[in-house]
């Protein structure tokens, strides 16, 4: 890979520490000038283009493909089909570990969902491959597809999300409801949604004998590498994956997907490098999505408005051939202090690609239902929604009774409400109008997301010239890893960021774990932090045990690393630069490794979550029903903020996604065929600039000594939670109409004039 020229201009203001500085993206100039090389920008010599043909039916069998017609087309080189393909080393249906999902790589003629790959045409040009794929004119034996939340017999999945229990109980929910002074019982529906990252899934695969060079966007370099290794039966060290930049992932690039495997197979088949890029509509199937849900919430309160019971049931779907269950009801585990809580899930199987992790999987779907229901309950009690939430504030994690490692949610409520002006909100809906006569409504929601940690490793080195190196195969999905992790790295070795060579984004570097679960900065950051500490420790050993050093005898604990020097803690006039230490020792480079992982003891003892409070204002045309969000304020407490600018962007993005969840996003499935009818960015609506109001993000100070050494909680996903409910609740407050099916549609609001 050509060296990346990362920029740190404009010169940032620094106060001795890199962490906490609002640096701009170091890869920003590369990106805006088109020099950042995304996977599909790679064109090794001799490269061919592969295009997938995908199924137009959702269930059945391919009975014929006109391979001859495709091959006759000028510049088509080969057509890969179930009968003509390189053998894989293992059956792709085999689930070799819990993070392996089944994929369609032409292992049979069976069709399990619409847009499933059924053949791959390889040609000298993209255009020829595209036309070749069209010429295949598949014929099918079609079976009636299973579609929707009532497609068949429901069942209880063994687990939901990542190994969460399907059911959880605390106390006696039925008794709590029976004893309640007031109750609500409401059903909410959320639609299937697709990640729609700006960059489609892509791969450029290049076999060199038994070595394999891969360019593809991935949120999990080592996980992908291991999967490629087992599928193709080659040693890890023979595979090299480059993924320096991702044009968004949102969970859909977490695992090696079928289409990327097909790209590698195609390259093997033709013995030349091959590029395969998904078309937008091809992303609606084989690369995961957020499953639809139907959630029933039953809540009871006593005469004071305190919860007596909270029952949250979620119906969802999985594919006919694999298991992933949106853990929507689990959203009710952490936020509100009810003496009795039950969360449960069931599912039906449908003909779709397997649903997968999509930004705040379960948390987002569960949050919009829970926050709507809490709003309904507050109204039933005649209480202000914020007062109601404060009345039911969880001092300890309700489901487990564990204390929180830190929880500045009260401060979030206070600061958010103050900034928004919440105190002026009338309790009754449909009370506010603007000058133009539009209905105005204010709503709020509580945000929460677990503070997770995975496992990562990093390698740090100090070079003879006094500069540093930090190596970690981390992932920049656009969230700013190139910048934020480099900030942590620079501090970890006591260097200015410009004196540090931060290497990332390729599989030959130490495993950074997966960029998911909002845990990447925390996990990779912890590994970097400990690698840095380790290398400084070695350097200090070198100096303090050398009689010729001014630091001789200072002892390992007695020096501070700052700006490229080790300084005696008890006497700052005695110091030595890294370069001097290494030069004297005659060492070219000194290195050390460090790891980052969750602390099981702390996890046992504490509930670890980030929190937030989101306030939204919407305007609704009273006769025409069109909705527009006009203001949003989010206050979030997520531990240490490594880079405020990047964190703010993450939270903005999450809040916009929440708005999108409430008002825009839905894949429209034809109930007869199981085909998605709006698989394009023109018709699958996400908010455009004109939909996004002024957003105000407050990061509330929070010190967490338990989550990890740096006190970092994630910020990648929390922004959606709370926000979606806040917008939905604001629509109710504006109109008096409670819409429980998302996204909220104009026709739902036309009933009142």
């Amino acid at each position: 890979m050509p060296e990346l020229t990362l920029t740190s201009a404009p010169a940032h203001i620094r106060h001795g520490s890199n962490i906490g500085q609002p640096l701009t993206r170091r890869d920003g100039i590369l990106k805006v000038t088109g020099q950042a090389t995304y996977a599909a920008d790679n064109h090794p010599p001799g490269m061919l283009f592969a295009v997938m043909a995908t199924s137009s039916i959702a269930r059945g069998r391919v009975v014929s493909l006109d391979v001859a017609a495709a091959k006759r087309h000028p510049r088509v080189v080969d057509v890969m089909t179930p009968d003509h393909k390189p053998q894989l080393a293992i059956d792709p249906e085999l689930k070799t570990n819990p993070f392996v999902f089944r994929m369609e790589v032409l292992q049979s003629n069976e069709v399990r969902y619409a847009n499933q790959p059924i053949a791959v045409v390889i040609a000298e040009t993209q255009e020829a491959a595209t036309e070749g794929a069209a010429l295949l004119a598949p014929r099918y034996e079609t079976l009636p597809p299973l579609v929707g939340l009532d497609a068949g017999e429901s069942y209880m999945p063994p687990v939901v999300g990542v190994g969460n229990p399907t059911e959880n109980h605390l106390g006696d929910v039925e008794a709590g409801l029976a004893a309640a002074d007031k109750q609500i019982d409401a059903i909410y529906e959320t639609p299937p949604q697709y990640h729609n990252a700006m960059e489609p899934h892509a791969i450029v695969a290049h076999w060199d004998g038994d070595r394999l060079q891969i360019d593809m966007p991935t949120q999990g370099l080592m996980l992908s590498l291991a999967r490629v290794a087992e599928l193709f039966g080659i040693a890890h060290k023979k595979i090299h994956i480059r993924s320096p930049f991702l044009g968004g992932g949102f969970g859909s690039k977490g695992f090696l997907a079928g289409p990327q495997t097909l790209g590698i197979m195609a390259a093997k088949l033709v013995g030349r490098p091959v590029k395969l890029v998904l078309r937008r509509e091809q992303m609606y199937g084989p690369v995961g999505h957020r499953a639809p849900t139907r959630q029933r919430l039953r809540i009871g309160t006593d005469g004071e408005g305190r919860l007596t019971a909270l029952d949250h049931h979620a119906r969802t779907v999985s594919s006919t051939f694999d298991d992933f269950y949106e853990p929507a009801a689990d959203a009710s585990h952490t936020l509100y202090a009810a003496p009795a809580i039950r969360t449960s899930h069931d599912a039906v199987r449908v003909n779709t690609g397997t649903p997968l992790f999509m930004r705040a999987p379960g948390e987002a779907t569960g949050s919009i239902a829970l926050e709507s229901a809490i709003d309904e309950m507050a109204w039933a009690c005649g209480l202000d929604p914020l007062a109601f939430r404060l009345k039911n504030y969880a001092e300890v994690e309700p489901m487990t009774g564990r204390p929180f490692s830190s929880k500045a949610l009260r401060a979030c409520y206070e600061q958010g409400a103050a900034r928004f002006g919440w105190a002026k909100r009338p309790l009754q809906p449909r009370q506010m109008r603007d000058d133009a006569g539009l209905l105005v409504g204010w709503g709020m929601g509580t945000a929460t997301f677990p503070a997770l940690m995975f496992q990562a490793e990093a390698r740090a080195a100090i070079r003879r010239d006094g500069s540093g190196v930090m190596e970690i195969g981390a992932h920049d999905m656009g969230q700013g890893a190139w910048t934020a992790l480099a900030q942590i790295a620079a501090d970890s070795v006591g260097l200015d960021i410009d004196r540090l060579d931060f290497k990332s984004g390729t599989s030959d570097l130490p495993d950074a774990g997966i960029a998911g679960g909002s845990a990447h900065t925390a996990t990779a950051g912890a590994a970097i932090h400990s690698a840095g500490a380790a290398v400084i420790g070695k350097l200090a050993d070198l100096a303090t045990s050398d009689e010729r050093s001014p630091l001789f005898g200072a002892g390992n604990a007695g020096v501070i690393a700052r700006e490229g020097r080790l300084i005696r803690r008890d006497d700052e006039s005695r110091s030595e630069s890294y370069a001097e230490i290494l030069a004297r020792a005659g060492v070219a480079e000194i290195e050390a490794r460090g790891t980052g992982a969750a602390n099981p003891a702390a996890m046992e003892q504490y509930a670890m979550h980030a929190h937030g409070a989101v306030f939204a204002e919407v305007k609704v045309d009273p006769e025409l029903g069109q909705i527009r969000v006009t203001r949003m304020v989010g206050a979030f407490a997520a531990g240490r903020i490594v880079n405020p600018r990047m964190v703010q962007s993450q939270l903005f993005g999450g809040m916009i996604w929440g708005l999108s969840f409430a008002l825009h996003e839905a894949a429209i499935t034809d109930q007869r065929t199981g085909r998605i009818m709006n698989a394009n960015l023109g018709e699958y609506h996400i908010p455009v600039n004109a939909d996004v109001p002024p957003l105000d993000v407050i990061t509330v100070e929070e010190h967490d000594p338990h989550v990890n050494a740096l006190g970092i909680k994630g910020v990648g996903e929390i922004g959606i939670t709370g926000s979606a409910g806040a917008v939905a609740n604001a629509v109710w407050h504006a109109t008096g109409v409670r819409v429980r099916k998302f996204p909220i549609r104009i026709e739902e609001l036309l009933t009142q004039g």
Partner: protein
Amino acid sequence: MKQFDYVRPATVTEAVAAAAQPGAVFLAAGTNLLDLMKGGVSRPDRLVDVTHLDGLDRIETLADGSLRIGALVRNADLAHDAEFARSYPAVAEALLSGASAQLRNAATVGGNLLQRTRCAYFYDTASRCNKREPGSGCDARDGENRGHAVLGWSESCIATHPSDFCVPLVALDAVVEIEGRGGRREIALDELHRLPGEAPERETVLEPGDLIVAVRLPTAARGFAAHARYLKVRERTSYAFAVVSAAAALRIENGKVAQARLALGGVAAKPWRARAAEDVLRGVAPTADAFQEAARRALEGAKPSGDNAFKIELARRIVVRALTLAAAGTPARIPALPASPFASTSGAIHA
């Protein structure tokens, strides 16, 4: 991609001749056509690129006071022509409420008129569609059809025409100038698009080779400038097709409506001129009651073609609102959120 010929004729006559052959289509900016080709919905054998033809990109006022807009004038250029926007404010507002800035910069007047329906089943080659494949059936009829037609549809097709631009144009009696194999002719825009009937594949009255060379707004169209609005309800603030839209234009004299013009978008296979509603407004005071009655008349005969009964009620409400806005007077500037129910809210910078 399918192989096709690409020709770039030098004159209108050559263009007409080149496009008259079976399998040939005109290419303007391609913002619709190229998408259709990439999706395999249109598979032409020959593209006749008209974007280099001389003289079709002018906006000119003719001796009789009418305005002639060349077929190649870009949507954005037309909307941003200050004189045009002053004289035909509802048309400019409609243009600016369509698509996105990038698309409007490219899209041409002729292409906008002849853009195809956005029916998802038309775009999906695996679905049955009488418009795409005559006689194959209509999968929208029992499918996802909450956006489909409520007026003028037939059992064979329930698609709508998606253009915003056409709605105020048809209200203002625009005329389409056509160059065909038989020479030049002109027809009312209202006559250009056909209702589906038994032959939804025939969307317009144009014959093979017919090139739209200009759209003309008659002298009388200027008379509405003081009271003309376009209103478009959509599912996001910008970059979305109309769920339903309306263009309303009034000539108010001595507190009475001397003449009214009304058309609806997103409800039928053509921009829908509501003449019966115009008639009830003639000579009456512009009151809420009169507008309600006009709305009722405008939607007479409307019936749902699927899960879209709400569009009928919505259309009535839009008619009332558009007439109310028109009566209140054309704003001095086109709002930052053109044609939006939120046009009057402050703070919007652009759409």
